[in-house]
């Protein structure tokens, strides 16, 4: 006698249960991860279970569910940092950017040597803070579903490095003020990274919003 194995199909009630279960297990889950995790579990549940018992299936999968997505934030952070440095160096090696780099560099060199201490520090702070604040305003979106996306959430971390340059000036100020060439190098690094950070955030924001336009509806 041939026994036909009946194909299990997840019910609407079970779908609601599954969604609630994932939200309970992973409170601040990225919406994109939610789709992926749900889709995977539904497929696997329908393909592997024979009795249609979702609770039992989820109990067996609890380890995978709890581990899913762990480390994704850190991977995104380091990917953004790599992008930041890559873009930063492109200002010094790509022919189309070199004229603007020379222009900004010459201006900073002039200001570093000819401004008095107070004015120089004020100009430094204004140029860096302005860029950082502008960059950080781009990391906000009115839709919570967009803000919860890991790729969007970590945009702010791009500005972490320029902020380090800003804060560490309090420690390095006495040395840099007496060594204006070093001040110039410090300034060009800080400003370059701030401008690059803003550009990377802008580009990434556009691509994220384009990619997740379904979350905006």
């Amino acid at each position, binding site marked *: 006698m041939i026994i036909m194995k009946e194909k299990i199909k997840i019910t609407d009630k079970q779908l609601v249960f599954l969604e609630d279960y994932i939200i309970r297990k992973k409170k601040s889950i990225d919406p994109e991860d939610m789709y*992926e995790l749900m*889709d995977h579990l539904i497929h*696997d549940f329908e393909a592997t279970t024979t009795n249609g018992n979702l609770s039992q299936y989820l109990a067996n999968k609890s380890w995978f569910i709890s*581990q*899913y997505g762990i480390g994704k934030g850190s991977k995104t952070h380091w990917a953004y940092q790599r992008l930041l440095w890559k873009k930063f160096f492109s200002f010094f090696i790509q022919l189309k950017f070199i004229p603007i780099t020379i222009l900004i560099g010459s201006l900073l060199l002039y200001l570093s040597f000819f401004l008095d201490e107070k004015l120089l520090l004020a100009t430094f702070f204004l140029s860096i803070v302005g860029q950082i604040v502008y960059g950080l305003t781009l990391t906000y979106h009115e839709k919570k579903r967009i803000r919860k996306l890991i790729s969007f959430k970590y945009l702010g971390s791009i500005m972490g490095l320029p902020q380090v340059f800003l804060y560490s000036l309090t420690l390095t100020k006495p040395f840099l003020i007496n060594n204006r060439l070093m001040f110039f190098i410090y300034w060009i690094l800080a400003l370059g990274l701030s401008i690059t950070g803003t550009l990377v955030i802008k580009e990434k924001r556009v691509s994220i919003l384009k*990619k997740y336009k*379904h979350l905006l509806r």
Partner: protein
Amino acid sequence: MYICCESQTQKATKNKPFNIDTMGNQKLYKGSLQTIILKLLAQNDKMYGYEITQKVKELTKGELKITEGALYPALHKLEAEGLLDVEVAKVGNRLRKYYKLTESGTKETANRLSEMQEFLNTMQQLVNPKFSLE
């Protein structure tokens, strides 16, 4: 044979009766997971996670099984490195996340496949000098 992450291997060994050969082979396959994913995506325009696991199972006639605990971290890593792009599409009444190769992902796939071919040739020369893959 399963490709899985370390902690899952430990967990899996408690539940599944792996023999020593299987565990040994699993170690050999583990370093190739990303290349396997890239190769599959190069052959198929776009794929979703579960589809990848099933495709590998089908191609290897069940010899190689990629566990979900190993697949998704690898996919997320490749995505963060900019080798994969993501597309979310509505299928039936639910949303599905598809992965596809980016431009740099296509180049990287070619590099990794040629590296793997070199590795296989070297291994072939070492373990069986009489026969060559080329």
